[in-house]
């Protein structure tokens, strides 16, 4: 559930080093799921058969039919069309969190590991202090202050999860920096920036990508939760987290499909990202 | 049954070990045979990939999962591979092993005292206080005088040299009859190495302990072992009494290895390097002498079949030209 735990698990996963990597069915399936989700996020509105915001009150919680494959939601809107539209915000938020976190986290980690000494101490303690904020809590706080919507929670999660990313990357960057080829380049007189850009970061790339993939999955979970709580994407906009919330009453009333369908979309995409992240991580480890 | 056939404490007979590598079984040891008599020290020498460590692991039943072993290993007349229950337990207490990297081989979260006495307490039921005092006494015999304090420390608080002594003392605590020493001095400084070797040599004589000493250093093996076994590409290529190893080697590889080392006593303009690199058993060409591609004495006959070990002057050599080359190999030594 939490990014913190997920990323930490990634770090602890070093314990499972050395397994050989093959293009397994798991990678093909999770990769396809991610590609499909991305296509829907980009082209969802073109694929959607109906207007996602048009309520037909008489049809509320009306079951599936050949025309409406997933039936209608609590307000009588076409569930399939809302899912297709909702992919966009559901994917865009995590993407923004991932990009910001990885950029900031890599930058801080590499700077701290490269310069060492006082600067490293400052960056590391700064990150340690940021650890005080659980992501969801900071997101709720941000939504309370700046108002509900996607922007405040995305910023809050980026800040809250940067220390987790940076801590793991800093450890890896320190290990890489201790490699003798780095010392050899320093002795040659290559500039620090050049060594970082041309050698250090490329050698950390497998870890950065693996972390980004895992982070995306968990950011998606947290942002969906924020939207579910009514502090993220606002109804009537379609979003998977919002859809679970809107149709929650259906669970008890005997119409679980609309809420479940949105929930399943989230789970499938997140599982795909997590499995891919795990495999990328293992591949990086095997290559070491 | 007669316990120790021909006076052998440990007997390896045609031991072949295969390991699963990328889905197929690859040989890492081929037809390894030798014996160790009670109280005898055997040196096992080879470069990387020669299979020397794998030999010790096979003897101690510490091979990685999936390993297939052919041939026979007998300790005190009993087949080691089929030992179980109380017999296995006794075997474990009679055969002790020490390793190159004590830091990896000692549990980092337990105290030295716990590590040293665990086997004694668990398997022999020796009370803690007695086990500890025995540990302290043994630490003293390996040159550690403040044993009581050391027992309370954690491994990370000790230097590599100290830790290696702790490991040796621990190995001797159960009064073994055979010590398997896998490169125990490789990671140590030269002066520490000399001390540890002296300790091993002393203890071995005092305790009438048999030893298999694995090293990549011909001189170290010759210095503290009665006989030396030289391995190349998973095979034994020579067995020779240590005193004659340098003066009268029987296999071109042994001679080349000795000649390749820079000499501390005289300046040589150029070393007699062996071309190519050491091969492991599964890289070596089949159906010819494994050393032939690098051997300065190789002839066509060497490439026609794997030579067998032949007895020569009290030693063994896996070289078809061994007899013919005697004396000429020695020349290589002083270049």
């Amino acid at each position, binding site marked *: *559930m*939490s990014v*913190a*735990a*997920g990323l*930490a*698990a990634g770090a*602890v*996963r070093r*314990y499972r080093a050395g397994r050989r990597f093959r293009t397994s069915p798991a990678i093909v399936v999770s990769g396809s799921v991610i590609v499909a989700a991305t296509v829907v996020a980009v082209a969802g509105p073109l694929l959607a058969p109906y207007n996602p915001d048009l309520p037909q009150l008489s049809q509320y919680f009306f079951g599936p039919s050949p025309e409406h494959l997933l039936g209608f939601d609590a307000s009588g809107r076409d569930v399939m069309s809302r899912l297709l539209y909702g992919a966009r915000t559901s994917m865009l938020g995590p993407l923004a969190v991932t990009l910001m976190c990885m950029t900031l986290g890599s930058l801080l980690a590499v700077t701290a590991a490269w310069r060492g000494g006082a600067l490293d101490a400052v960056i590391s*303690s700064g990150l*340690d*202090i940021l*650890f*005080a*904020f*659980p992501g969801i*809590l900071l997101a*709720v*706080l941000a939504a*309370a*202050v700046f108002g509900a919507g996607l922007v405040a929670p995305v910023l809050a999660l980026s800040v809250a999860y940067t220390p987790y990313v940076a801590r*793991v990357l*800093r*450890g890896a960057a*320190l290990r890489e920096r201790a490699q003798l080829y780095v010392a050899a380049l320093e002795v040659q007189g290559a500039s620090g920036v050049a060594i970082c850009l041309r050698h250090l970061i490329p050698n950390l790339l497998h870890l950065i990508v693996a972390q980004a993939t895992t982070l995306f999955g968990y950011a998606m*979970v947290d942002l969906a*939760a924020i939207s*579910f*709580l*009514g*502090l993220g994407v606002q109804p009537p906009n379609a979003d998977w987290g919002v859809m*679970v919330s809107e149709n*929650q009453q259906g*669970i008890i009333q005997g119409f*679980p499909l609309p809420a479940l369908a949105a*929930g399943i979309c*989230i*789970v499938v995409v997140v599982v795909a*990202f*997590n*499995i891919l992240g795990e495999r990328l991580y293992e591949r990086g480890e095997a290559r070491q | 049954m007669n316990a120790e056939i021909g006076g052998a404490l440990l007997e390896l007979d045609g031991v072949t070990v295969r390991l699963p590598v990328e889905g197929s079984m690859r040989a890492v040891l081929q037809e390894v045979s030798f014996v160790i008599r009670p109280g005898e020290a055997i040196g096992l020498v080879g470069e990387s990939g020669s299979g020397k460590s794998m030999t010790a692991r096979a003897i101690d039943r*510490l091979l990685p999962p999936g390993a297939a072993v052919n041939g026979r290993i007998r300790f005190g007349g009993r087949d080691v591979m089929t030992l179980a229950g109380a017999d*296995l337990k006794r*075997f*474990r*207490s009679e*055969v*002790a*092993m020490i390793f190159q990297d004590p830091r990896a*081989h000692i*549990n*980092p*979260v337990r105290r030295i005292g716990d590590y040293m006495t*665990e*086997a004694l307490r668990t*398997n022999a039921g020796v009370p803690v206080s007695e086990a500890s005092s025995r540990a302290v006494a043994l630490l003293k015999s390996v040159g550690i005088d403040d044993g009581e304090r050391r027992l309370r420390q*954690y491994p*990370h608080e000790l230097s590599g040299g100290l830790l290696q002594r702790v490991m040796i003392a621990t190995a001797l605590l*159960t009064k073994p009859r055979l010590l398997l020493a896998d490169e125990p001095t490789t990671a140590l400084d030269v002066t520490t190495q000399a001390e540890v070797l002296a300790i091993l040599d002393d203890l071995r004589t005092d305790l009438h302990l048999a030893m298999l000493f694995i090293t990549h250093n011909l001189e170290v093996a010759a210095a503290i072992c009665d006989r030396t076994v030289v391995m190349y590409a998973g095979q034994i290529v020579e067995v020779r009494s240590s005193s004659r190893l340098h003066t009268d080697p029987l296999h071109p590889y042994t001679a080349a290895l000795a000649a390749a080392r820079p000499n501390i006593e005289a300046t040589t303009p150029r070393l007699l390097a062996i071309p190519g690199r050491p091969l492991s058993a599964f890289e070596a060409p089949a159906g010819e002498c494994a050393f032939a591609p690098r051997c300065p004495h190789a002839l066509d006959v060497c490439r026609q079949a794997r030579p067998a070990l032949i007895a020569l002057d009290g030693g063994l050599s896996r070289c078809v030209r061994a007899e013919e080359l005697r004396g000429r190999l020695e020349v290589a030594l002083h270049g």
Partner: protein
Amino acid sequence: MHLRFVLRRLAMLAVSLLVASFVIFSAIFLAPGNPIAALSGGRSLPPESLRTLEVRYHLDQPFLVQYWYWLSNAVHGNLGLSITLRENVSDLIASRISTTAGLVLYASILIIVLGVSLGILSGFRPGLLDTSTLVVTAVSASLPAFVAAIVLILVFAVQLQWFPSLGNGIGFLDQVRHLTLPAFALAVSSLAIVARVTRSAIREEARREHVQTAISRGIPTAQLIRRHVLRNAAIPITTISGITVASLIAVAAVVEVVFGLAGLGAYLVQSAQSKDLAVVQGISLLLVTAFVLVNVLVDVLYAVLDPRVSLGSRAQ
């Protein structure tokens, strides 16, 4: 050695809390409009309420002085007044804290007991159990708590009717019964993560060279597992359990909302929606403190378990 570690960690704890409280306090100044507008959530309030706000926040004083007043009040248990409920925030929190604490505790027990046992079992027994554990945990590790919650309600409350789907319950047993589904919903993904990490930690420790040494010395298998494999694997297992348990403190809000539990999290969300900033500040401060304390506890536990740790931070 350990004392120095604990002292250093406590100093860091103090700094973290100070910074966190500062961030939480400054939130009202970051909000659009003036602080009063932020605190009142844009509502028009009776003059006496406005007065209380001004007094409470010392809005006529410099910023840092205001912060100082707010903090010392908070430390003394005075967290101000809820704008919507016109009640003391401390009292409101006090009446809800036991639900959240119970929920988090229940879920933590599930995670540690079930997650670690499952991980140990599949770590030592390769085969069908291990494979199915791997597959199931791969999916459940990615399960958002609110999705887990609606599935649990659907199956165990609506279909099987074993557990209630809403409310807190009365009396201890009834409360436990009411908390069971929420606790599972909260625990499920962390449980899976803990199980997976436990499994790989055990596999990894079992392969260590010192375990080989112990085998070669004839240490019986049961003792080998207990004293060398499990003991050493306890270090990463503690770390991951601590991180997941700490994260529950915030995630509990989601579960409380789904199950209609009157806990702190649900109240926090409700206050955030109604822009009742005094409440948001109070609860945030409390949750952050709990979160940081659990993390400190994990670090201390880690140092106790691993004699190699003297100063410095977690497993890097």
